[in-house]
């Protein structure tokens, strides 16, 4: 039973979530990862969606395509409004935040704003931060979930939309971000963390059948290694069955 890249991402991301916690989940793979975790190791996990939605139940076959629609709010426990939802994170109520991005650098900073040129007249205008900057600033722990491609993993992002460790060391703290930070990067090739001092990205674990050389080849900056680089356990049939049941139309599982 082999997993598609999206399935691999969803399963690996879901394993990061502990029970009795809360998670800020965007739509697509992150939402599926959170829902999977709820069915497995984290039955008392609360999903929070930035559209102002707390504790929804995702409905297979009616998965949301945005964070602000009835499909995202299906059977929610509370609908506090957008600003107040983010304020729960600022207060410290959000344990995890999932994030993706067009560009990610070696310090985990993410760009979803502009590529090339001047900000006011960019070569490529991307949709923008949405809540990503707030999630990156306010959650206790941020987990980046993304396909692993060299064009995404760049030495320096063109624009810091969502800061992780900024320029490394204690520069995040010095910029006024007193809490949180990116703890994990879950990609289609492996799991990454950050070296505690320099805050540079390092390889923590390789997915089944992936070599370190392969990872470096798809990464635009030199990767560090964790003291003990491990191998991740492949998605179990059980995990994949549950996951696929959540997205029978394979809208997000590819």
């Amino acid at each position, binding site marked *: 039973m082999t997993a598609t890249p999206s399935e691999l991402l969803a399963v690996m991301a879901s394993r990061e979530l502990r029970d009795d916690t809360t998670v800020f989940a965007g*739509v*697509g793979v992150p939402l599926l990862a959170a829902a999977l975790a709820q069915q497995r190791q984290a039955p008392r996990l609360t999903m929070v969606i*930035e*559209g*102002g*939605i707390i504790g929804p139940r995702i*409905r297979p076959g*009616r998965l949301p*395509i*945005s*964070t*602000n*629609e*009835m*499909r995202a*709010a*299906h059977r929610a426990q509370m*609908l506090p*409004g*957008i*600003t107040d939802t*983010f*304020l729960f994170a*600022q207060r410290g109520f959000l344990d995890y935040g999932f994030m993706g991005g067009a560009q990610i650098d070696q310090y985990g900073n993410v760009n979803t*704003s502009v590529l090339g*040129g*001047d*900000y*006011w*007249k*960019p*070569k*490529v*205008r*991307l*949709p*923008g*931060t*949405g*809540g990503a*900057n*707030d999630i990156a*600033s*306010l959650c206790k722990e941020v987990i980046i979930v993304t396909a692993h491609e060299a064009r995404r993993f760049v030495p320096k992002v063109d*624009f*810091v*939309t*969502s*800061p992780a460790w*900024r320029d490394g060391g204690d*520069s*995040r703290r010095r*910029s*006024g*971000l*007193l*809490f949180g930070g990116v703890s994990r990067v879950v990609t289609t090739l492996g799991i990454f963390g950050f070296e505690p001092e320099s805050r540079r990205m390092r390889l923590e674990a390789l997915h089944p059948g992936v070599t370190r050389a392969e990872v470096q080849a798809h990464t635009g900056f030199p990767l560090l290694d964790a003291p003990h680089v491990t191998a991740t356990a492949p998605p179990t049939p059980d995990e994949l069955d549950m996951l696929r049941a959540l997205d029978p139309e394979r809208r997000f599982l590819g």
Partner: protein
Amino acid sequence: MGDPDLRASEWDFVAARRRLESKAKSAGEKLTSIEDAGSRVADADRIAVGGCLFSRTPMALIREILRQRRHGLTLVRNLMCTEGEFMMVAGAVERVMTAWMSIGLPWGVSKIMRHYVESGAVALEEWSHLALGLRFRAAAMGVPFLPALTMLGSDLVGVGGMKTVTDPYSGESLAAVPALFPDVAVLHVHRADRFGNCQIDGYPHMDADIARAAATVLVTAEEIIGEDETRRHPDRTVIPGFVVDALVHVPFGSYPHECYGLYEADYDHFAAYTTAIDARGPAAVTDYLDRYVFAPAGFDDYLALFGGERLATQQRLARELTA
């Protein structure tokens, strides 16, 4: 246009309060026509749009503003969708202030936004989702800024010109998110009585703060209820009548966007719309505006273009999700 400095009128809480003080705050009649409501918008106004993305967008008021050929507008909305594209293609808007603009995952990055922003024709001033929410909330509270822990350390700070403030107690430096006082708020709600007391079901988005923040408040409602119904459920009211300047009864007033519990967004319509843009770019939107905004005399004529059967389907889909 590309200046990173805040425009003082955005955060000037003293001027904003004086403007409110000089205005009648009436408990009287607010019902009027969409044309009259739309006429309260002037060229170059800064307009805050209620709802979020394709949820509870005040589409009837957006249509009317386009029909009255306003221009030089600044549009502010936390997440922007097709309404922003309409304004760009119609040449009505000069600047948009938002956290995100496109339609939704399946349709990728907005080609219209890319066309107008990358060419420098429209300035896209990006703020984080929470920061925009706090900008409206600061204005709603009548203060020039709110302290926060977001947007710091990002390049967004330089875009909008946000400053920091030192906490007088701890000495820590925090973000000072500036107030944003709109000239006009355009909102769509589930129900209101003729005095403008408004009630919203489901996610409230930022509408209540936007209404308090703005100098002029224009509202469309799916349903006009009797005064007694308001008074039977006062804890459902989110905007009081004395805040509202004009109210118009417009069933399906967000369509093809959604209204919680009443009708789901018309995803097929979005797909056809984006397919046309993929093929023909902005010209496709020009044709769309002719067909959906300028040609139909009234909102009923506009709805007729979608057809009663489709509207009924969207109502059923909404009930399935919220029952």
